[in-house]
């Protein structure tokens, strides 16, 4: 109720009676309220504590995180170098793989570029196939 508002007698007397009852609150309740207040203020202080005072509690965690990051970086940079020479020797690794996988294609390449060789091989295959079917 703001100061500007006019109170009726009833309201004024009611307020007086209620304020009187507040004054009569016993020591046990007052003590418990006091404890609750201290706990609340402490909770608020802990939440608002400045960054500087929290700095020292953060240092061990930050240090551990930095060390872990450093180790990861070192392993990342040194690990792949052991396998690099193998990759470097082949100019077309994908092509090599195909040749190794396909034995017939390898024969064709080794015979040279001659399209005649291919036809000879094809003719041989046909004859061989025909002979087998006859037997």
């Amino acid at each position, binding site marked *: 109720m*703001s100061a500007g508002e006019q109170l009726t007698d009833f309201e004024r*007397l009611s*307020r007086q009676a209620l*304020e009187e009852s507040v004054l009569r*609150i016993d020591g046990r309740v007052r003590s418990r309220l006091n404890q609750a207040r201290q*706990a609340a*203020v402490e909770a608020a202080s802990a939440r608002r504590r400045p960054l500087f005072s929290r700095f020292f509690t953060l240092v061990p965690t930050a240090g551990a995180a930095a060390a872990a990051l450093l180790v990861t970086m070192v392993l990342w940079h040194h690990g792949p170098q052991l396998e690099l020479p193998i990759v470097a020797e082949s100019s077309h690794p994908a092509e090599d793989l195909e040749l190794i996988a396909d034995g017939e294609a390898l024969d064709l390449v080794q015979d040279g570029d001659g399209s005649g060789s291919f036809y000879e091989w094809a003719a041989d295959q046909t004859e061989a196939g025909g002979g087998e079917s006859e037997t």
Partner: protein
Amino acid sequence: MPVASHGDVELSESSTNARSRALNQFLAGVELKAFKIAQAALRHEDDALDAVQDAMLQLARAYADKPAEEWKPLFYRILENRIRDMQRRRTVRGRVIAWMPFRGDEEEDEPDPIAQAPSMDPSPVKKLELAEAMGALEKALAELPRRQQQVFMLRTLEGMDVAETAIAMGCSEGSVKTHYFRALQALREQLGELV
């Protein structure tokens, strides 16, 4: 990158201490009245203490950084929510107990702490009259609907204006006026010349 100097830290710490002092002062100013309001609603001393304690903690944890002028309506809003939670829990517990076949009536026999409020040194006549009025008022308040009781306590005991009361109760200013008017009417009818 700017680094906080020693002076900045001191400033920050002193600001934190000032906020803590302000919060302590605020809570010290409202705790007794808040207890009385909670006690009128819950009619149980320990429940009222728990409600006030919870409200204090929640205000400190969630709203301590808000401007100090906003604390009072926020605090009473939190307190009101706690009171409502406790009343709901009590209602549920009452229903469960009512269904139990061999229930005891211990709670029924429990004395009402408001009715048994201690009367200290009632030597002057005025004090006697006031004590009588106080007892009658508390009894009449206990019989009011919850919203009317709440608005009457906030406006009369805590001295909050309509706008603050509306925030604390989570309703419109019009509702505050209506509830308050009805509360006054009901109390006048019940108390007559006593108060």
